[in-house]
């Protein structure tokens, strides 16, 4: 319902990130990014004189709970806009709910692409914005023999399928592919390390997420492997995981992402400053936190013009909108409702931060169905 403009009643929005369970390390930062943006907006007077009021639930890293809580948000709390989800499995759990009840999910996480829903705005990277650039850089710096390791669910399997194609198209090979269950224990990484020792790849490409990330890098470190010769390359390991595993353990490994805390620009310094003011001087920012933060701002700018939380109105108006995000200027691509983002590859240093090895000259257009993908050596020619 469009409410009269003279009301000061808050705009209620839903927030769904896990603060408990094996996804909490990263999702907690996404929750913080969301709340930081909401607080900043409210501190500067809200939107058209009305504050944003988050209704927050913790799905506890349980896939089914995401769908049920999305239903609760829409039915009981009468919310139509939801910010949330990290894993593809949780997004797919929320999808039927927002599609049937015509809500709008803002999804701030990189994912495997190949999806389009009229009820989702995707603000994380798709493979053409991270995998392609990472693949070519790895081939150039380390070699062309890849070993894949991932968590066993949709995102890693799909990312690896796409990566396998890119590696093959560029003349490389995949010498091993292993999956561990979501929420795998430390011990489960041991036999895989043994296998890697025998396979002698040039690069380990990891799509392990959650607590397993820490176990993987620590198992690698315990085995005495050298990141200078055979680094772990990832699309998901960011500052939050590096802090959790130990800076010495993470040093020398690579990640492709639209954002790292270490990039130098004014928006980012402001962003990092206000984040650390609130959560502590040693709290690092990361790509998922950053997209959680900027998507709330994109939403707020749109809501200001629309003055309505109705999904069809909001969605139509958000298409093509731009925002000066910490990563640089970003926009919502009207073809796909995915964000056009910056492409970067970073290498973790001793301080738990990433040194930037590659940066795209402009934003890379979202291409979730990889319609325009060529050989991946072309993409990063500017390195």
């Amino acid at each position, binding site marked *: 319902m469009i409410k009269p403009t003279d009301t000061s009643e808050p705009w209620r929005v839903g927030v769904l990130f896990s603060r408990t369970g094996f996804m909490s390390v990263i999702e907690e930062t996404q929750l913080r990014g969301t709340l930081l943006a909401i607080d900043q907006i409210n501190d500067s007077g809200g939107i058209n004189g009305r504050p944003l009021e988050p209704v927050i639930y913790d799905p506890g890293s349980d896939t089914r709970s995401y769908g049920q809580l999305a*239903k609760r948000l*829409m*039915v009981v709390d009468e919310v139509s806009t939801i910010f949330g989800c990290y894993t593809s499995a949780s997004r797919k759990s929320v999808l039927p709910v927002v599609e*049937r*009840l015509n809500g709008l999910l803002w999804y701030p996480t990189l994912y495997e692409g*190949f999806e389009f829903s009229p009820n989702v705005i995707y603000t994380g990277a798709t493979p053409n914005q991270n995998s392609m650039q990472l693949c070519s850089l790895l081939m150039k710096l380390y070699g062309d023999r890849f070993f894949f390791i991932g968590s066993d669910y949709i995102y890693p399997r799909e990312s690896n399928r796409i990566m396998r194609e890119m590696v093959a198209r560029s003349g490389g090979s995949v010498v091993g592919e292993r999956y561990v269950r979501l929420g795998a224990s430390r011990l489960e990484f041991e036999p895989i390390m043994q296998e890697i020792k025998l396979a002698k790849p040039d690069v380990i490409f990891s799509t392990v997420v959650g607590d397993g990330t820490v176990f993987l890098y620590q198992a690698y470190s315990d085995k005495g492997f050298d990141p200078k010769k055979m680094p772990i390359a990832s699309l998901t390991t960011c500052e939050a995981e590096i802090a959790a595993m130990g800076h010495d353990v993470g040093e020398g490994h690579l990640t492709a992402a639209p954002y790292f805390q270490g990039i130098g620009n004014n928006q980012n310094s402001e962003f990092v400053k206000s984040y650390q003011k609130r959560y502590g001087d040693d709290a690092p920012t990361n790509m998922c936190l950053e997209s959680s933060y900027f998507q709330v701002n994109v939403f707020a700018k749109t809501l200001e013009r629309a003055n309505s939380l109705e999904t069809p109105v909001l969605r139509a108006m958000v298409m093509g909108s731009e925002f000066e995000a910490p990563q640089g200027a970003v926009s919502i691509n009207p073809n796909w409702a995915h964000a056009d983002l910056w492409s970067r590859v970073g290498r973790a240093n001793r301080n738990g931060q990433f040194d930037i090895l590659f940066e795209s000259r402009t934003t890379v257009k979202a291409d979730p169905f*990889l319609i325009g993908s060529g050989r991946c050596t072309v993409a990063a020619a500017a390195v």
Partner: protein
Amino acid sequence: MSRIEVLQERRLASPPQGAVRNEQSAPNNQYKAVQNLNVALIVELDSEGERLMRELQRLRCTVRHIWPVPVQLPENYDVVYCTLMEDLPRRIPWLPGEPSTTLILVDRGQDTLNLKLINNCAAHGMIHYPPTARSTIGALAMAREHFLYEQRLRGRIEKLDENLRTMRVVEKAKSIVMRTKSLGEDDAYNFLRSQAMERRVTIGVIAKAVVESFDLLN
């Protein structure tokens, strides 16, 4: 003897009549879609409730009466009728958009219609008291149609998603088959498809096997 059993006896005693009376003469048995369904009827058995039950039984539906409204609606029926109430969405165990059964709301016609509540139930149809033979059949037929259509559409979307993912592998496998067997594009595709049909797997599975074994041998 419970009330339901009484009613079932009554059903045996009274031959089908009213709106379905011409059913025998309808050439293609047009009532087939709404007959012999397993129905859960979650309404109070007042005179209107009894009338609704009678109409359903006339359609040769197996009707199980449940009252009061359970905390969770049952899922193992073809159709669930449930009286519209304030907290009904919370009693629906499936997610909106992923219904496991046809849901028809029963409006007793007492309060103002709450459209937001109706929307939140994500149901397939609604009937209003008093239930007449015509409106019962009409609403049931429409609701079943919508439910089954929704299932088919969801199936199609799932298939499309899957196809989108496999298309790239199929393209690659096709070019391998074209090269290694010196076939044209259409023949290469038909080769993959016939292999898939013979083995009773999807073309994606065959394509993946071709691509992987090709990678392995090279």
